[in-house]
């Protein structure tokens, strides 16, 4: 059996290389199909691996609560809010929370100045608990402390990018920057966190929460964000339910009204991203499936032509002793090798394409091919080869030797 397999592969390869151009054109369908699936998979996999890394660094046991206004209500001028009272309520009543911090984004200018340099950054008012919740620590100086909030000190902790953008010295501690017309003393420089989804996570300025509140004045009714980390990530469900009940009561929502806030975990965000990527992969997979099908039909077509062309040869082989399975095997293996070769070429092309895409788009993660996609691509193209090779091979094997020998 193995012997026959080897012999068939040899003569199949010989016949494939005897018609190089034709073989190549035949497998083009498979090549394109496999190349596109590999290109897409390598790009999306690179992206999802990257996103996974990013979210893992965000901490899987942290929760973010944000106000949420449906679009319809926004049109009516209604705005949902999370207030400092909500924060206080959660601090007092909720259980299973390790640390909790409000975040207040600057609602006017995010301009920050140092000497003659001006930059724009994400300016957030928060508390000392932020470093535990966000897993963000200082490399130089200190973080915001409790007393800073009590006395509304005008101090700031900045990210690495802010330091660079403002041409601050290597050690920016004790330098002064201007935010919203007020002078802030830099007390700390954060560890570099790298990029997340094309956005720098080092381009932030943290100031005490109370300082930010007073900076905004009283004209705005504050809408804060609350970030908290759990003491046990297994209690995620319970804590979420508890928080939902607390906030719904506080906001006086009746049972038929929707939540006017959203509780999100880093994991949820990641799942959403993965879902999108998964959907893209499935859609592309479907398209590729069709393309492989078409490629398979192309192979079948050429194999049928090849059988007709070689009718006389088949007759000769049968006359000198070839059995049905010898002929069947030869044509089946030829179809299989054709599509496998196409699969291999497609694999290389697809990886090249993926790398090209990843390299042309700046900030895009590099392409990675997971092993399963290689196995899938080769497996599927092999399957197509066998599936569409059977009919021509059976036709060849069933030829009557006398008719075949007489064939001109």
């Amino acid at each position, binding site marked *: 059996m193995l012997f026959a397999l080897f012999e068939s592969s040899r003569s199949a390869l010989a016949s494939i290389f005897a018609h190089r151009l034709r073989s190549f054109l035949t497998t083009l369908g498979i090549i394109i199909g496999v190349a596109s699936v590999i290109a897409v998979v390598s790009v999306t996999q690179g992206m999802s691996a990257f996103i996974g890394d990013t979210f893992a660094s965000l901490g899987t046991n942290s929760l973010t609560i944000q106000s949420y206004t449906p679009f319809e209500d926004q049109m009516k001028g209604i705005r949902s809010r999370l207030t400092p009272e909500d924060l206080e309520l959660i601090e007092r009543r909720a259980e299973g929370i390790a640390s909790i911090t409000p975040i207040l984004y600057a609602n006017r200018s995010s301009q920050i100045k140092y000497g003659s340099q001006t930059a724009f950054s994400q300016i957030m008012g928060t508390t000392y608990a932020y470093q535990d919740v966000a897993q963000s620590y200082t490399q130089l100086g200190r973080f915001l402390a409790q007393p800073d909030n009590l006395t509304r000190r005008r101090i700031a902790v900045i990210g690495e990018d802010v330091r660079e953008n403002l041409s601050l010295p290597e050690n920016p501690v004790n330098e002064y920057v201007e935010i919203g017309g007020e002078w802030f003393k830099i007390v700390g420089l954060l560890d570099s966190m790298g990029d997340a989804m094309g956005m720098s996570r080092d381009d932030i300025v943290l100031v005490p929460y109370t300082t930010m509140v007073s900076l905004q004045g009283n004209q705005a009714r504050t809408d804060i964000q609350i970030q908290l980390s759990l003491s046990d990530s297994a209690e995620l469900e319970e804590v979420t339910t508890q928080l939902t009940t607390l906030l719904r009561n506080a906001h006086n929502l009746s049972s038929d009204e929707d939540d006017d806030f959203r509780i999100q975990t880093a994991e949820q965000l990641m799942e959403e991203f993965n879902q999108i990527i998964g959907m893209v992969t499935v859609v592309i997979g479907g398209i590729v499936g069709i393309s492989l099908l078409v490629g398979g039909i192309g192979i079948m077509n050429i194999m049928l032509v090849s059988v007709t062309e070689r009718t006389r040869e088949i007759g*000769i082989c049968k006359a*000198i002793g070839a059995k*049905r399975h*010898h002929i069947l095997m030869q044509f089946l293996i030829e179809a299989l090798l054709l599509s496998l070769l196409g699969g291999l070429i497609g694999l290389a092309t697809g990886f090249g394409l993926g790398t090209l895409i990843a390299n042309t788009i700046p900030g895009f993660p590099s392409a990675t091919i997971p092993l399963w996609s290689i196995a899938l691509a080769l497996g599927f193209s092999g399957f197509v080869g066998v599936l569409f090779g059977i009919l021509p091979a059976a036709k060849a094997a069933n030829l009557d030797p006398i008719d075949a020998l007489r064939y001109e």
Partner: protein
Amino acid sequence: MVLIQLQDITKYYEMGTQVVKALDGINIDVYKNDYLAFIGSSGSGKSTMLNILGCLDKPTNGQYHLNGTNVENLDQNQLSEIRNKEIGFIFQSFNLLPRADALGNVMQPLIYRNISVRKRKEMAIEALTRVGLSDRIDHLPNQLSGGQRQRVAIARALVTQPSILLADEPTGNLDSRTTTEIMQLFDELHGEGHTLIIVTHENEIARHCHRIIEMKDGTIFNDSAVEKGSKELIN
């Protein structure tokens, strides 16, 4: 020793509503080391005879024993095996595989016997040497002359050491000089103990044989032994 035994062989073809009797009650015994020619005009049943003798086709009725095996009850795969073991085919149009060189062509029937590549090569070279083509083993069929191609075909027939060599108009596509060479080769093979059956319409060829069976309308018209060395014309 009887090698081939044909008993009441008939072969009918249905052409629409008409039944054509290609062979009609053939009884022949062929002995080992026979040198036999089937002659007759076209339509006499020669080709059908050849197909049946070569186990390419089965008779409608009658019994065919080849080297002790009753061919009647064999299926296509078993017939392939019989052809591979017992019969060496030599065709008018050579029927070589165009993409294989001389060596590859001669090795081909051995593939179906699961013989290792090395052994196959050895046997094929030996057979090619026997027909005088040891210096042409890497030539493709289209790089060889007609006579050389037929020699390759003969080598392919010889390499399996079959019990009969079955030649169908072996010189039909060759010029007279090459014809003489090929017939000389046949004479030699017969001298070495091979059993040869040649189907031809040329009396020139048949004259080399030692037994001539003349066919007409699917029946045996005349079955006569020729004296060894006799060169007299038939008819």
